[in-house]
């Protein structure tokens, strides 16, 4: 009787673990030709990234690269920037993208908070801007924050083809600032 119950529970537990693992895993799969990336996929990708560094994700090859000073490898964007400044209990987040090819860019900017200057950052609030013109487009937002924490800005720029297919996602983070 006890063994029977165990035999039933083991497959169920296995399925549960598999489902949980699949949900928690970062986006690694290559998109089908012509498939459009969803904002949820981009969010899942960004959530799965380590807490420091800048990253680029090629949606066509499914390749994720850490951008270091010696190996920035962007295919579409020229520059992505993220910055933060603080005045009293108000922080001003700023981000920008520069692009000189005919693509649309989704620019997401998130204010993040942590008790440490280098890790454990959680999103506080976010803003979005659609960029449809060549050159540099920036935006900045002010936000009242609680004191005693470290804050930083995370900019996520996703380049879209004319058919709306995601081509490249670049994640850049500002240095952290204590308020």
């Amino acid at each position: 009787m006890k063994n029977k119950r165990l035999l039933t529970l083991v497959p169920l537990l296995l399925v549960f673990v598999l489902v949980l693992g699949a949900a928690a895993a970062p986006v690694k799969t290559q998109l089908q030709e012509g498939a459009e990336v969803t904002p949820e996929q981009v969010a899942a990708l960004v959530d799965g990234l380590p807490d420091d560094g800048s990253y680029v994700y090629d949606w066509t090859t499914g390749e994720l690269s850490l951008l270091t000073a010696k190996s920035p490898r962007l295919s579409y964007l020229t520059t992505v920037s993220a910055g933060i400044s603080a005045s009293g209990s108000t922080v001003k987040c700023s981000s920008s993208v520069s692009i000189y090819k005919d693509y649309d860019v989704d620019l997401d900017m998130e204010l993040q908070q942590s008790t440490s200057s280098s890790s454990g950052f959680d999103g506080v609030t976010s803003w979005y801007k659609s960029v449809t013109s060549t050159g540099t487009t920036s935006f900045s937002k002010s936000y009242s924050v609680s004191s005693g924490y470290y804050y930083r800005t995370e900019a996520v720029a996703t380049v879209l083809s004319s058919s709306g297919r995601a081509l490249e996602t670049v994640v850049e983070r500002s240095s952290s600032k204590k308020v």
Partner: protein
Amino acid sequence: MNDEKKLSESIEENQFRLALWSAAEREGRELLELEEQIEDNSSYQLTDKRRATLNCAIGRECRKHRVHKYMRQARNAMVAMLVLLLVLGGISMSVEAIRVPLLNFLRHTYDTYSSIVSDQRDEEPSTADYADLPIPTYLPEGMRIKTPPKSGDAIKSVYYQDQQGRYIDYIFFPDGNNLVLNTEGAREESVEIAGQKGTIIEGRDGLITIVWGTVPRYQINSDLPRDVLLQVAASVGIDDSAGPGSIINHEEGR
């Protein structure tokens, strides 16, 4: 003698009382007669219409009185609520956990509903803002501003273009933003611009990027030759009206 006086006073008093009673009796009788007359005389009776009007008037007065009473109560209740709200508001605003989201909500509401923002570069209102923006004082001949810096932006950028379609995109980061630059297949070289360390990146597609400074940080992206761009970069923030090339008029070309 005294007894006579007392007796005389008592008689006077009794006579006075008797007179009063007689008068009251007479008056009562008259009133009874008047009542009988009124009851008998139909002209003194209220008609149904008059009775209804009277009832109506009495009702109106009663209602008015009731309304006044309710209004007084409502006013008192409102004053009490206002006092309560002020007290609660004061307590809430002194608690950071409530104050911060509330202020952010108000700021968001103001940002969202107080202005019309278009993402189309060409449709944006031309609210050029050159305040605290060091700009290149040297630009090649024919370069005109296509997109001026916008007010309210922390990052300022000016997009210059000539008639051949060549461009200079100048970006100023007052907070020294962290940058990701595209250096794939590019040639990188360290340079010094106006005494500050910088990098020039010459891409495969002819795009040249120059970045210099830390806080603030400056950047130029352009398809012009590197020597020209280095000259433009070196002129940023310098008042060099006698320098080579044309001096840009920032009011033109908007």
